């Protein structure tokens, strides 16, 4: 099997790359806003939504989007529960996903793995769905990056300057949630979470400008997908973990090199 000759691998690779780029673009704002824990809770909520969708014969992508948007509304009204509410959502959503899959083996038999992902099961329809989602979400993150940056790092000052910071915050959360939701069914919780955090953290070790951090994180993100896919095909390894380990390797190398040069 060759990565560059089999059409179904091209589909899987395209879904993996587009999903990783979407999550990495969102991940910059996740880290700026200090929302790492929120992001994995959203990923679990999306997984639970996808599982529930498959159970009730609803398109899992749509069910994941509904679940993520519901979780975002919950976060914005969590009041005194604070981080505790995020923890409850994370654990509860993970439990729902595991329960549904264990009670309905046909989901597992169909190749769905919402935790570790199974990109090789991507269909052409999945590829088009991901391309459509990418065409909508990525331009929003790029066009409105300055407003997102300002409201992510200093929402109070943004509001005193007359910026509708709450509107930007909601839009940012929704686009982060959508990035997660459209990637989750095929890539799984681990892949989505890793794609948001690790390439950006690696880029922060290698770049000394915010713009460079964005570019380097996207290069790391795509490079990790290509390396992980190649390793997966060559040595018959599970795809998502192979990609995640490729990202982790880049981060570790960047960390060692940046420490030595410092």
């Amino acid at each position: 099997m060759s990565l560059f000759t089999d059409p179904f691998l091209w589909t899987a690779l395209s879904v993996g790359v587009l999903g990783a780029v979407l999550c990495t673009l969102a991940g910059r704002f996740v880290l700026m806003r200090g929302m790492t824990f929120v992001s994995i809770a959203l990923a679990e909520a999306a997984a639970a939504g996808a599982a529930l969708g498959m159970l009730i014969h609803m398109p899992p992508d749509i069910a994941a989007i509904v679940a993520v948007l519901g979780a975002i509304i919950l976060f914005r009204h969590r009041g005194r529960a604070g981080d505790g509410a995020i923890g409850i959502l994370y654990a509860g959503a993970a439990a729902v996903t595991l329960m549904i899959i264990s009670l309905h083996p046909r989901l597992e038999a169909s190749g769905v793995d919402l935790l570790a992902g199974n990109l090789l099961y991507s269909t052409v329809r999945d590829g088009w769905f991901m391309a459509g989602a990418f065409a909508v979400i990525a331009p929003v993150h790029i066009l409105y990056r300055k407003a997102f940056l300002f409201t992510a790092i200093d929402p109070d000052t943004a509001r005193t300057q007359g910026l509708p910071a709450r509107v930007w915050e909601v839009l940012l959360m929704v686009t982060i949630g959508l990035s997660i939701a459209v990637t989750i069914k095929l890539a799984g919780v681990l892949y989505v979470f890793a794609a948001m955090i690790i390439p950006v953290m690696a880029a922060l070790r290698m770049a000394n400008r915010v713009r460079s951090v964005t570019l380097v994180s996207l290069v790391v993100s795509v490079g990790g997908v290509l390396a992980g896919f190649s390793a997966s095909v060559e040595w018959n390894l599970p795809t998502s973990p192979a990609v995640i380990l490729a990202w982790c390797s880049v981060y570790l190398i960047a960390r060692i090199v940046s420490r030595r040069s410092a």
Partner: protein
Amino acid sequence: MNVGSTSTGTDALAVLTRVSAGYGRNVPVVSGVDWALRRGEAWGVIGANGSGKTTLIRTLMGLLKPSEGECRVHRNIRFGYVKQRDGLHDLFPFTVREMVDMGRMRGRRLPSDRDDRMGQALETTGLVGIADMPVRELSGGQKQRVLIARALVSRPDVLVLDEPTNDMDVAGEQAILGLITRIRAETGCAVLMVSHLLHAVLQISEQLLIVHEGTVHTHARDEAVHKDLLSSRYGIPVTIRPGSGGGLSVEAIPGGGGGV
């Protein structure tokens, strides 16, 4: 409630009438505040930690809605908010120029004379030579200048500074206070400075808002420098001594029940 955005009818930029404000449904942090801010005035806000100083300025700037009373702010007023610098983001390598540039982002439109404003703000705050350095690599005093420059880019009517000289040595503190004084003289903006350091506030302001246990009292500068008044406001016996930079400092009387 009410944060009005309207003409205040006089030369006042903002008028607070019987304002109470706080967080959630708890007892208000400040209550019954009557106060007016006029163009070009310089006010200091002092009080013990947790007394409600920051709550007061957040209410003025519309970040908190009053639970009672009315906060009327002139329709076209521009606030230049200089937050506490320890809340400055340092994970991402924003340069001085990028951070200051955020100050020109407004709700409705971007100012057309962007480069002029940026250049002037960097020049005024002495940041031209380090404009391309990452903010996270700067000293505390330089970071404070970055925040002031970001506020200046919007050409504010009111410069609001929250503890701008916290944790600074005497030289750094005097440099920042001198900069604020110069900005006020050059731009004519009103200044509202929150601090728990009396000498710093006295150096900048002509009038004081003293916040004590949720109530707010206004005093002329000279009237406020009285140990009995300050003792009652801080809730412990204090004395006033000559302090750093030729100013005054307020100190707790040993054995008098606490420190300031």
